[in-house]
């Protein structure tokens, strides 16, 4: 049976979702459970693991901003960076309130986007 025939059945996407989606994702969580079970709450090893996890998530963040998916990719990179910068600055100015940061970034992006549309 070729891939083309398989792809046309109704159940093939669900096999993909279960094997290539669910198993490929949850296996890391399960490995994390077993590998993390022996870590001590106050240990040096945990500090390192947390650093690795934090750096990974930070990498996801800068990728989402610099190389976005979908329509956001059509906006100029400086607009996305400026909106993020404004949001992060507002987050600090508001004594680290996340919602202020998020709303400021969105407001800056929308204003910039509309202005560019008018000019272009």
């Amino acid at each position, binding site marked *: 049976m070729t*891939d083309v025939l398989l*792809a046309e059945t109704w159940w093939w*996407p*669900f096999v*993909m*979702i279960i*094997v*290539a*989606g*669910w198993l*490929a*994702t*949850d296996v*890391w*969580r399960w*490995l*994390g*459970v*077993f*590998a*993390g*079970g022996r*870590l001590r*709450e106050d*240990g*040096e090893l*945990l*500090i*390192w*693991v*947390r*650093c690795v*996890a*934090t*750096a*990974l*998530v*930070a*990498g*996801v*963040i*800068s*990728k*989402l*901003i*610099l*190389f*976005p*998916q*979908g329509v*956001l990719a059509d906006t100029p990179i400086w607009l996305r960076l400026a*909106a*993020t910068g404004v*949001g*992060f600055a507002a987050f600090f100015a508001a004594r*680290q309130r*996340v919602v202020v940061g998020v709303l400021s970034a*969105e407001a800056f*992006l*929308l204003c910039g986007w509309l202005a560019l549309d008018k000019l272009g």
Partner: protein
Amino acid sequence: MTVPERPERPELLTDTPVPGRIWMLRGARAAISIPALILTAAFVGYAGLARETGLTLAETLAMTGLVWALPSVVVLTGALSSGMGLLPAGIAVALASVRLMPMTMALMPLIKVPGKTRNWQLLIASHFVAVTAWVYAMKHLPDLPKEGRLPFFVGFGGSVSSFVFCMTAIAYLLVERLPDIVAGALFLLTPVYFLCSLWGASRLNADRVAMIAGLALGPLFFIYFPGLDLLWTGLVGGTLAYVGTRLYRRGLT
């Protein structure tokens, strides 16, 4: 470590044990929060993408519920729409999901009561590990008594994912096509939210340095080592941050 943040809740001050289901309900109540709303908005944006790509409602919901990590869901959507084979799609998703392992590892010592917590309980709880719930847990769980943390986390994660699941379905059915500017704004929501909340959840200088290192290294590794880029970002950035701040804390001992 059990200093209560809100003294108006006297039940946190007493020594009488609170049953697990009460902690679970408290977690569910805490789920009514800004992070949950932002995540919901991000998934509403995803529902638009899924519908445009030609995914059915059942497929969209199966991915939301089973994968439960937005970046991995987006990768799998791309794989399904381009007719990628099972193995390459699995590898692509697995690479996008590696970050869940160190995240889960870092969470375990917080929620595990040695000698009491069963592994199957931790395996179930681990499914809710994704950036939103993880950041929230790292920030708030240390303020709770140890016995309450696991049920609280399950209550929190379970409610957030059920709510997002329903809202994704509603968005898929109601919104035929989002206007470009709305879809774009929804896509920016996730990184800005992650950025602010990750900073807010960092407790040590090491966490903050690791975050800055990851922000800087992520794009570099993406350009020069695409595929394994996030893994390298985590290992190199995290290790640099750890070693650097350790030298600062302790000198060369």
